[in-house]
């Protein structure tokens, strides 16, 4: 409705409004040497092919690789899995593609 006097329209915000808080990025690794790197397979076909190669390359750089698998690509990773990775690893690489 146009307000007669001011000729402005007042509408209600359809967004959550408060969901803009910034989450800082995790600290980046300065070196792979001695780092523990998680490889998360999201269970898409041939993701393992990609991750096997990444694993080889990481090992060449002195990283220790830990492998994890999401139960299904169609759902967010379970909280337990995310916590396991966060508590045991310094970095994570996710294989998204088919």
């Amino acid at each position, binding site marked *: 409705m146009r307000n007669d006097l001011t000729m402005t329209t007042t509408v*209600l915000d359809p967004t959550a409004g408060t969901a803009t808080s910034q989450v800082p990025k995790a600290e980046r690794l300065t070196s792979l040497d001695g780092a523990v790197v998680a490889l998360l397979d999201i269970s898409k076909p041939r993701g393992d092919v990609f991750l096997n190669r990444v694993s080889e390359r990481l090992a060449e750089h002195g990283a220790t690789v830990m492998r994890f698998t999401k139960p299904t690509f*169609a759902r967010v990773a379970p909280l337990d899995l995310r916590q396991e990775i966060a508590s045991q690893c310094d970095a994570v690489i996710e294989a998204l593609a088919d």
Partner: protein
Amino acid sequence: MSEMTLIPSPPVTDGLVAVVKRDCPTCELVTSVLEQVAAADSVVVFTQDDPAFPENLSPTDDTNLDFSWHHHIETVPTLLRFVDGVEQERIVGWSREQWESFTGLTDLGPGLPDHRPGCGSLSVDPTLSDMLAVRFRGDVLVSKRIEIAELEDEMEAAFDRGWSDGLPVIPATEARVLRMLDGTSRGPQEVVGIIPPNLVEATVEQVAINAVMAGCKPEYFPVVLAAVEAACRDEFNLHGLLATTYFAGPVMIVNGPVTKRINMNSDGNVFGQGNRANMTIGRALQLVVRNLGGGRPGEVDMAVQGASSKLGLCFAEREYDSPFSSLATERGTEEGADALTLFAGFGPTPIIDQLSRTPESLARSFAEVLKTMGHPKLVIGFDAMLVISPEHGHVFADAGWDKARLRAELDQLLTLDTDDLIRGANDIAEGLPEAFAGSQVPKYRAGGLHIVHAGGNAGLFSSVLGGWVSGAKGSEPVTALISAWA
């Protein structure tokens, strides 16, 4: 009327209260009667239009209609009695008999006619109702107010702020949102669900704002609320459905008398344009995902091609002449209940069969198309919804086939030899791993083929709404009662 916390009404004094306006001949008529009453008893007179009327009764100014609105005055004159601040009784218009009985006085209004009907109260004047609702109920809305400046077009402003799915949205003014909230008895700050991907708690008020923007009427609102609640259930996996590179989105099938009450389409062009309820209810759910959840194409929504059904695909099942049990009753709701089912899907994919006159032949046609959904060599992972038209439905009804009989036939026809499906078969790399060779598999998981009845009277076409990753690995269809949100 929803049970909102209203702005507190002005305090009242005990005794008699009259509400009048000068622009009402009956109010003019009873002025002398009110003077008689005032002489014998105390009476507080509220006047709606002219603060000086009636002259000899020291009227209380109610030109802002505060008293009238809060006490739901519909007619003037209205005479009320308050005891301990609570209204005990009221009469409207002029009737000597009623007024004498009400006041306990005799010989009221000598020379006046015995009765005269009253006039409409300004507090229920349709030209003022929006303004009054905002004035007296606007404070129940806690969402941020955004001023659209004088030189800004309010329709363009919604696009500029990213609130639109690509089509114009209705500006969510306070008056419109208040009217939407009248469509439910739920309080505006009740939480309906946690909306992915940002996991934001969506309140009834926030859903109402998006329902207004989608173009819904207040009578659709319980359906929208039930849809949001159902979509937020864990088994539906709205987050994954939003994020997928596939074509699917939430498809809504509505059952029960509510479909007639709000004029939903279950017949001709059921998936097409032209019906406001069908078009806007599904859209409201998607606007909630976009605006509250933060789920936008190219961001968390990674659909490679998407589908126009992601604007919102919502339709009613054609129950009144269906040869089959309804989708909702099959999924456990009582016969005649208002319910909606959400299915992760898109569509439609056509099935042409203009020649089959036996259920066996027609079921084979259905099966041939159902085999191809997604890819003819991929099985089990995705559900599908078979939407049978009335003319195709007649073929099954005439042969005495119910849904269970049809499903048994389709299950058999959709049991496939894996040798045709493994990777490399038919010179197609896509397919099942080699290890599956030499056996048989169903195209759809048990319970993964859903059947509904919809469409116009003429046309020997049915269709399939393709599904998405089903079950615990993806999305499980959910059915919710709409009455819970009425």
